[in-house]
């Protein structure tokens, strides 16, 4: 029997438990409002390495190691690792994962990587193809700046709409288990491009995709927004958040009461000078692995709609004057079976 619902949603039959999470962040994230939820705050931006790219790979390796240590599951019991990052050819993930000798699936959907990893992991578990899957996503401020923007020491100003790439890695162990919380449903987003071409306003570029995925999810499962305790997007920041609320309002859906964004939660806008908020694969990944997972465990949130968002641009596509397509995947996580 087909487990797909309408055009883009899927529903899982087994109990796909998020058994454990691990998060490692950089110094700046460790000074933010969510500091107490992270497992490790690394003071050294190089993570003991000699380049930003190697630093990010080391962060990936450390976080997976930490996850294995925190959970009681041994390395040999992990069936697959699904991981993604922002660097060209996903080298942060591949170099970080290679020493573990665990079958690996590398993915890319920009900053919504963790969402894609969680959905694919759940599908593997629900289809009886695996018993334990690790989902991982990472980003590093310095390696992202080097690849997408300008050298770190170049003096200049960032526009008010720009976001700050998170240095962080969020990792989770998905398993068929009866321990809450569970991944119950998911909606796979489609690529939406409404013509935003400013790479310093990625919140605006991704907002239509986020609004579309939330709308599709709610209508596919016949839900109202207040069904969820919290609907949280990945890295839209302040600009993107306002746009999503407005776009959904135009479709007759009011999410303003229980809607937030990981990029807004992770930084203190006034004290940390981060403009529109945090961004990057790590943003949604560490906010979930740290803060949101804790809230679910403590039953402060029982029904969560987690919507990681991604801007599908490259440094080349921007120079060739292409607009920025956005994507968002929605994952419903609940404490009740």
């Amino acid at each position, binding site marked *: 029997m087909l487990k797909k619902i309408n055009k883009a949603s899927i529903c899982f039959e087994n109990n796909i438990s998020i058994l454990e999470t691990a998060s490692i962040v950089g110094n700046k994230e460790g000074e933010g409002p969510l500091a107490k939820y992270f497992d490790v705050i690394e003071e050294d931006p190089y993570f003991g390495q*000699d*380049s*930003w*790219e190697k630093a990010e790979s080391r962060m990936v390796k450390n976080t997976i190691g930490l996850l294995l240590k925190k959970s009681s599951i041994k390395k040999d019991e992990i069936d697959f690792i699904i991981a993604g990052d922002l660097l060209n050819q996903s080298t942060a993930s591949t170099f970080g994962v290679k020493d573990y000798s665990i079958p690996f699936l590398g993915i890319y959907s920009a900053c919504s990587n963790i969402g894609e990893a969680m959905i694919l992991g759940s599908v593997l578990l629900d289809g009886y193809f695996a018993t334990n899957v690790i989902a991982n996503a990472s980003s590093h401020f310095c390696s992202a700046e*080097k690849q997408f923007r*300008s*050298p*770190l*020491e*170049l*003096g*200049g*100003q*960032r*526009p*008010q*709409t720009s976001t700050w790439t998170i240095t962080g890695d969020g990792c989770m162990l998905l398993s068929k288990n009866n321990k809450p919380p569970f991944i119950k449903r998911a909606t796979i987003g489609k690529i939406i491009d*409404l*013509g*935003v071409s400013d790479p310093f*306003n990625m919140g*605006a570029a991704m907002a*239509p995709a986020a609004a579309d995925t939330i709308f599709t999810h709610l209508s596919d499962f016949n839900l109202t927004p207040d069904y969820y305790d919290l609907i949280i997007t990945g890295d839209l920041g302040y*600009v993107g958040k*306002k*746009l999503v609320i*407005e*776009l959904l309002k135009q479709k007759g859906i009011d999410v303003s009461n229980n809607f937030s964004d990981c990029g807004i939660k992770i930084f203190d806008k006034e004290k940390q000078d981060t403009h529109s908020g945090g961004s990057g694969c790590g943003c949604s990944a560490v906010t979930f692995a740290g803060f949101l997972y804790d809230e679910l465990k403590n039953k402060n949130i029982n029904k969560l709609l987690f919507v990681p968002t991604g801007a599908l641009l490259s440094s080349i596509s921007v120079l060739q004057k292409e607009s920025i397509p956005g994507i968002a995947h929605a994952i419903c996580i609940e404490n009740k079976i």
Partner: protein
Amino acid sequence: MELICIASTEYKKKKFKELVDAYSPKSNIVSNCTRAFFVGGSICVIGEIIKKLIINMGVTTDNAPLVTSMILILTSVVLTSLGYYDVLGKFGGAGSSIPITGFANSVCAPAIEFKKEGYILGVGTKIFIICGPVILYGTTASVVIGAIYYIIKKIGE
């Protein structure tokens, strides 16, 4: 049918652009210009002071501007390497990127960033990624202006 579809997408994009413009906070032009004016002005004043000082120390008036530029470039490179110039750049904006110190910063910053890829294929190929256009079009423009100057001078004779 297809035409209607394209028209409606264009309309949607236009409407969304209006929404984005309304919701995106703008940079404060007055405060940015004021800061750029004072930072840029201060760098030039410092240059003038250096020039006067070195002339007093015995450097000829012809050589003084050259030596002043060298001192400013060195200072900027040292500040960039120590991680201070980007702080100044964030505060001063165009005021710190237009003077010769900003140019030095735009050469030094990629040199530091791409050193990890080696001195030939890293530093060597990437050092001008920011200032390359200035060098290319700056020298081209000066050749063109030089030619025009030469022709006008010939006609004048």
